[in-house]
């Protein structure tokens, strides 16, 4: 596929996903700066924009069920508990940037079933098959977590916790960085550990 036709396909498929970046650009969202805007379809194909949640705290979770590190947090019910923990005022967007040609790719229908099986509770689940949203944020691995505060500023970029393994048992003893950041944010304090290296499987970008 030539670059031009790939670009066209991307445009059609992703319905003009990320406004500010070309599909090839890989940039890192920077803590302390406005979070990159994006629009991506949810599992029902309905477009969801970051701008839809203006004035609310938004948490982004990069996801791929094929990844043992994601499995660790879903099998232990750690991720689902986290999705419910902060209540309805906090928006949780789970984003999957696995490209359609990869063995880990799951269709929206399959994902809907799997998420139900795990009793997953994100506000919305977004399909980012083009990888445009992931690239705009510089998302590296699954799981990779971001927190955007109510003013639209990125306040956290990093790992889910400090136990950098795929071992389910480690969840019990881990220090959860997202919980710590949210506690500080809610107390009106700056996030002390705002940027760290996430761990997990490489995102299967197109």
């Amino acid at each position, binding site marked *: 596929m030539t670059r031009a036709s790939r670009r066209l396909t991307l445009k059609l498929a992703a319905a003009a996903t990320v406004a500010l970046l070309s599909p090839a650009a890989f940039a890192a969202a920077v803590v302390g700066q406005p979070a990159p805007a994006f629009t991506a379809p949810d599992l029902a194909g309905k477009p969801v924009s970051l701008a839809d949640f203006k004035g609310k705290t938004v948490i982004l979770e990069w996801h791929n069920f094929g990844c043992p590190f994601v499995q660790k947090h879903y099998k232990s019910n750690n991720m689902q508990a986290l999705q419910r923990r902060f209540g309805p005022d906090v928006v949780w967007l789970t984003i999957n940037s696995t490209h359609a040609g990869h063995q880990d790719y799951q269709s929206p229908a399959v994902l809907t079933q799997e998420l139900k099986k795990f009793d997953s509770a994100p506000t919305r689940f977004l399909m980012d098959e083009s990888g445009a949203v992931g690239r705009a944020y510089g998302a590296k691995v699954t799981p990779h977590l971001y927190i955007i505060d109510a003013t639209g500023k990125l306040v956290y970029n990093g790992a889910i916790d400090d136990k950098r393994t*795929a071992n389910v048992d480690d969840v019990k003893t881990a220090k959860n960085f997202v919980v710590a950041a949210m506690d500080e944010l809610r107390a009106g304090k700056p996030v002390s550990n705002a940027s760290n290296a996430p761990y997990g499987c*490489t995102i299967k970008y197109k």
Partner: protein
Amino acid sequence: MSFLRFARLGGAALAAAAAILPAMPGVAAPVRTERVTAELLAERSAVLPGQPVTVGLRLVMDKGWHTYWRNPGDSGLPTRIAWTLPEGWAAGPIQWPYPEAQRVGPLMNYGYSNDVVLLSTITPSANAAPGPVTLTAKADWLVCEDICIPEKATLTLALPVASSASEAKPANASLFDKARANLPVDAKGWRAESSIAGNLLTLRLVPPPEATAPAAVTFFPFRENFVDHPAEQRLARDGNGIRLAVKLVEPVAPGLNEAAGLLVAGSAWPGLGEARAINIAAPVMASLPPAAESAGSALGGSLILALVFALAGGMLLNLMPCVFPVLGIKVMGFVQHAHGDNRALRLQGVVFTLGVLVSFVALAALLLALRAGGAQLGWGFQLQSPAFVTALAALFLLMGLNLFGVFEWGGFAQSLTSNVSARGRYGDAFLAGVLATAVATPCTAPFMGAAVGFTLAQPPAVSLAVFATLALGMALPVLLLSFFPAALRRLPKPGPWMETFKQLMAFPLLATVVWLAWVLGAQAGNDAVLALLAGLLLLSMAAWVYGRWAHGAGIVRIVAAGLLAAIGIAIAWPGGNQPASAVATSPGAPAARQGEVNWQPWTPERFAELRAVGTPVFIDFTAAWCVTCQVNKRVALNREVVAKAMADRGVVALQADWTNYDPRITAALAELGRNALPVYALYAPGEPKPRLLPEVLTASLVADEILKLPSPKAAASTPPSR
């Protein structure tokens, strides 16, 4: 990957580990996981109480699968080992071999492929009793191809405690030798420091004396979430050392006081055996000293080669248009002696050579002193001063008038060609040497650019040696003629033809004045040229008065001539308050005509902007006072074939005009290892280093170089690198 597969995998690894095999000293049965074969190895068949021994965890990965270094990069996890040892024994940390950079889509990992041995030191208890002992290592690692699998294995190693050294025989020698060869070394004598500006880390590596840093070096940081791993690391030479510009993850953590990691070279580090990787812990400084000019690529930093180039370059200088008039006069001076006094001729040659040498070295010493004081100056710097240009124009005019016979020198200096006294002649010869030097410096001969660039980065003694050699090269043809006058004897005997020749030689001198007037125009504008010419007119009148009444009224003549000369110089002298930036249009950048190259002025910002979007760039480092530059511009650069080639390849032509003092251009030249003009640099998209074109150009040479670049259409259809 399914859950089923994941569960099955863990089970398989544990089952394999559980099957403990009969203990065999020094080795253990390998354990096979889904993608890796793992085993423990020891360097000795047995250990002695209290004596450390090296053991290795060997991971043989399936083709295309990777395990990871201590900093795995953007994803991945480092391999871990948890030892279970007898009471009183101790295990050291993993000694990590240097990793390879593994690009995965837009991400970068640091790890290993095929086969890796991770060494650790095991120290037995000092009072270990002789007899069989089993070491147990629980190892876990992440192995990735396109997908990642966390794997683990429990490995055992039978390692008896021996009672005598003879029982602890070497084992697995070749494997351990190979593993050690991949370990980073502490580079004694090499010094690293760094600074952070914005999100850019600059690492500076200074080699010990006599060593030169390798040309391709990559930094692998120990710390995670510090360096932007996939970003290109830009290497620049810094004398014999290097500077590496490394993009950092934003926001840059405050209070970083050290950049620690490995520097991995494309080849072995000089003076460090076969080692490809060195450990560095570069303290973060407030700022780094300015980069030294690096050795020119054509030179490879060798002093002897620089001397050879300097000698050849000096000889070629004689053919340059700036030197020619002075040389012409010198040769004519020889003719007078060519048919007679050999000794006088030789002495003349030697004195001329001394004149060249002394003035060259004095000029170089002045340049070095000014540079040491922090001034961003380059070779030919004196011509960046309008005052110097004016003085030189006045001097050349007077010399020309003298040759026409308008006046004769009196008093302190004899005529350049008159045959008065021996002492006067030697004075002339010395003066001719000084003059030749003064006008020669702006003419960079081929081979000289790299030599001058090299030499200014060296210790002063080396610098001066190179400049002295350059001077010797320039004086050499004249010196040889004076010692072997056979060639001169073929010239006709002195006679009336010499007067004709003398007058003829005035024209190249006056041509030089014309050129200097144009240089001044470029530096200080139109009005300065008018002032110069008016001043020169008065100076001519002074010379005429001085010559016309040479045998008449003594004091009136001197006063009148002196007054005219003084007024002339006062008019011509460029105002000190004339800022260089007052010149709105540089003569180097005329509006493009049909079939000519569309030059744009060079600025560091414009250049960076073009490079950032991958536009190929051609830079012409030029100056009005650089004659070679002007010749090249007319015969090679501003030609239709070049303009067409540039248009075809989308090349943007930038002109860096060094006519006036500009520290930014001096710095840009230094980055290329140059300090003299002309320099022609062609930057291809995606290539960090430019192609440097020769100092003497032809239109087809330039066009050919440009057409070697990929055409923009072809570049657009290439898929982005993954």
